[in-house]
């Protein structure tokens, strides 16, 4: 089985409802998977509602709303009331502010630090099961490192969204590393050559 490589596709004909007849195009090679996906949208109520409201929110606040507004809007539409905020102790300042903003919008907030502590060390999976007992409707991830996030988030029973991605070197802004790289500059010259006026 060939690996799927949407990264090497430049035509992007799936946006218009078509596909390319190539080995790497996923909608040409595996059409049966997407038929299965259609059934899941119809059968599973939660995923269908989440996908619908996410599409509506995208069109309502395109290029206007920040990500935190999107999260509060989704929680309102899905009628969630208890929201859990997961955070790392390094990002305490950000977590306090998000908790305040969420409480002002009318949600009851449960905040919880990352479980890998020094005094009574425990795996993050066990901590997530503790959080499941409190029965939150949604979990907002405001900054967990890679190792904790993979272990924690997969055990959660309720929908999880990320608000902040933790990055120690670049001040929680991982996209800045991409834009500062040398390859990006070379490609940006190719893309914007006509508009900037470079040769």
């Amino acid at each position: 089985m060939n690996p799927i490589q949407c990264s090497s596709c430049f035509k992007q004909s799936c946006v218009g409802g078509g596909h390319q007849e190539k080995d790497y195009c996923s909608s040409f090679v595996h059409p049966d998977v997407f038929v299965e996906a259609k059934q899941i949208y119809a059968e599973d109520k939660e995923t269908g509602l989440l996908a619908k409201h996410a599409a509506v929110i995208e069109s309502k606040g395109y290029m206007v709303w920040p990500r935190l507004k999107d999260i509060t809007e989704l929680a309102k539409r899905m009628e969630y009331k208890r929201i859990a905020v997961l955070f790392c102790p390094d990002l305490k300042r950000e977590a306090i502010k998000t908790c305040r903003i969420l409480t002002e919008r009318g949600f009851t907030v449960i905040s919880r630090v990352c479980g890998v502590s020094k005094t009574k060390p425990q795996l993050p999976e066990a901590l997530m099961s503790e959080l499941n007992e409190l029965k939150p409707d949604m979990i907002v991830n405001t900054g967990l490192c890679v190792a904790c996030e993979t272990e924690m988030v997969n055990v959660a029973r309720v929908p999880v969204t990320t608000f902040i991605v933790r990055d120690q070197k670049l001040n929680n802004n991982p996209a800045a590393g991409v834009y500062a790289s040398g390859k990006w500059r070379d490609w940006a010259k190719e893309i914007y050559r006509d508009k900037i006026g470079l040769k």
Partner: protein
Amino acid sequence: MPCATCESQTCFTNEGKMPVGCPELNRDQQATPETTEAFLEYTSTVREKKADRISELIEYARFKGVRTIGIAACIGLHDELRVICDQLKNEGFEINSVMCKAGSLEKKEVGVPSRNLITTETGYSIGAVACNPVGQALLLNKHQTDLNCILGLCVGHDSVFLKHSEAPVVTLIAKDRTNAHNSASVLNNFYGDNFFDRRPIPEGSAEFNKKRIKPIDLFRMIRKKRRGQP
């Protein structure tokens, strides 16, 4: 359980007393010490290094013995995907990358109303094809990836992808269209505070703004003059 308002972080600093009602007090000692020790050592070493997010991911993948990495990306971040894919390929991983429009699911089938279909309410053009996070997850499950990455999925689609993927999931970039994917900057900013009504209004500003003519009224006045009406 307000961990955000806790002042003495004894669980991390090992100093002072734990507050009343702390969940650490009721917790038992670690259940399976053999598996935890390696993981805890790893996390402590990573925190001291202060690494980049992507290099942190590479390090974790080597710690877990991951071979194939799947990336579920937004179609707006295609250029960023190319850079990250090249970097991960150079490190020696096998990569499957899927865009969010794969399979071209129509928005009507999900149940989106017709006014939100082709143009947004803010005046930009987006197509009639919906994002398909379930299809992304099922495709990556079929190719048997060991670790999946999210690269800039929207808020709702994010959690749908998490629900249906079998492999563990990491987010690399959280998409934020207004702040150039730096979603935390809303909290540290004057304009972010203004957006969420965190700033008190300065004295007299409300009355001052009332006296001013709104741009719509100006437009109406000009239109009346052109028509010759008083």
